[in-house]
């Protein structure tokens, strides 16, 4: 291989960013992240990618070398960020120590560079060999497979069952236990509404005081359910106005109460 391919410079992409938490060139952002002066968790990497795409469109040309460096860096940042976001045993290992993070990014860039150069070497080999063609004429069919009368049991059928068994295994579910899942059931909210109803009319805000959004949604669903069953009626004078709720009167309410 020519020494030229080894000396080819690695380039960081020359990209100006205008983000919520940061304003300036991409490599400065990188430096600040690595020095922990900007919190990676607060950087919207999607915006960085979008800025880069705008930047490419504005230039109207694609510098493949710089684009590859950018991709390697942005995927590394994404991976670092996702590891920072996910709690687990790994968290202790990746306190984003600036020195270590820089070493990891550098290792990624060097690795990508190494395999790109290796790829050029392989392409060169293939080019050198292109004049050597091999004959590819089929053998007569009789020479190509075992003949039925002479065939004997050489394979283990258990191998097939094992292969099917492996394919039946569902991959482990992604662990989302760290994401708090508000647990509120329709049954719970129905009983809250019914207890308020027993006291007479009330407004909806009372039913959802200090509740989170999911609880509000489930309560509203429960309200509609009770209306459908004829246990209550409600009115709202104007959009976003107060929702007044009253016990229903009439035969349906009687039967529901029964």
């Amino acid at each position: 291989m020519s020494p030229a391919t080894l000396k080819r410079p690695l380039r960081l992409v020359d990209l100006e960013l205008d983000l919520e938490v940061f304003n300036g060139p991409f490599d400065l952002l990188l430096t600040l992240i690595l020095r922990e002066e900007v919190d990676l968790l607060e950087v919207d990497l999607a915006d960085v990618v979008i800025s880069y795409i705008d930047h490419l469109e504005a230039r109207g040309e694609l510098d493949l070398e710089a684009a590859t460096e950018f991709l390697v860096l942005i995927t590394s940042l994404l991976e670092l960020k996702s590891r920072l976001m996910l709690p687990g045993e790994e968290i202790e290992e990746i306190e984003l120590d600036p020195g270590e993070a820089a070493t990891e990014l550098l290792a990624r860039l060097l690795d990508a560079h190494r395999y790109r150069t290796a790829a050029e070497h392989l392409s060169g080999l293939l080019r050198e060999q292109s004049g050597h063609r091999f004959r590819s004429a089929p053998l007569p069919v009789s020479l190509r497979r075992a003949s039925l009368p002479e065939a004997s049991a050489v394979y283990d059928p258990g191998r097939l069952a094992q292969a099917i068994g492996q394919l039946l295994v569902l991959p482990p579910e992604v662990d989302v236990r760290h994401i708090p899942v508000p647990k509120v059931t329709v049954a719970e909210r129905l009983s809250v509404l019914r207890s308020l109803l027993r006291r007479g009319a009330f407004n909806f805000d009372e039913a959802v005081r200090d509740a989170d959004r999911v609880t509000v949604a489930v309560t509203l669903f429960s309200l509609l359910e009770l209306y459908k069953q004829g246990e209550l009626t409600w009115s709202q004078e104007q959009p976003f106005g107060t929702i007044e709720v009253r016990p229903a009167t009439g035969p349906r309410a009687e039967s529901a109460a029964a």
Partner: protein
Amino acid sequence: MSLTLAATLEALLFLSPEPLDADALAAAAEVEIDEVRAALDTLVTRYEQEDRGLVLRELAGGWTLSSHPEAEEAARNLFARPRTPALTPAQAETLAIIAYLQPVSRPEIARIRGVNAESAAATLLERGLVEESGRSQFGAVLYRTTDLFLRLFGLRSLEELPPISAFDPSPELEEELRERLLRAGEARVAG
């Protein structure tokens, strides 16, 4: 190029699985047909007189190289051995899917495996372990196993395929097996 015309023609005849006529050879080598005829004569003489394992002959369709008939015994030793090399993991997976779900289409196999099954299926066809069995309602080729498959796995019939209960305690209907394999395949790709 510095090869002689005879050597160039030898290379072309070596590469071509089909007979080549003098016109085609002349066009390829960019020379007159008379030159090709003369070079072919030279080649025939050499093949006859020198110590060669190949024979150059003119058949109906043109000129063709073939192995010497006296090498046939050695060729049989080499190629006619039972062609039953160990199955690769991809081949085993593909064959298992065909064996348990047959008839099954290639797109279905790919969905279950999460990757393309083209090359594994081609090898299984080539070895005679599976064969085509019509087409699905969507026009995809369907596969099933062959008698040679049964013989090579020591099975008297498909009924003797090992139960999958060892891997899955609940007895499964065939349809459920197919469904569950597809679901697992899709989960693997998504994951």
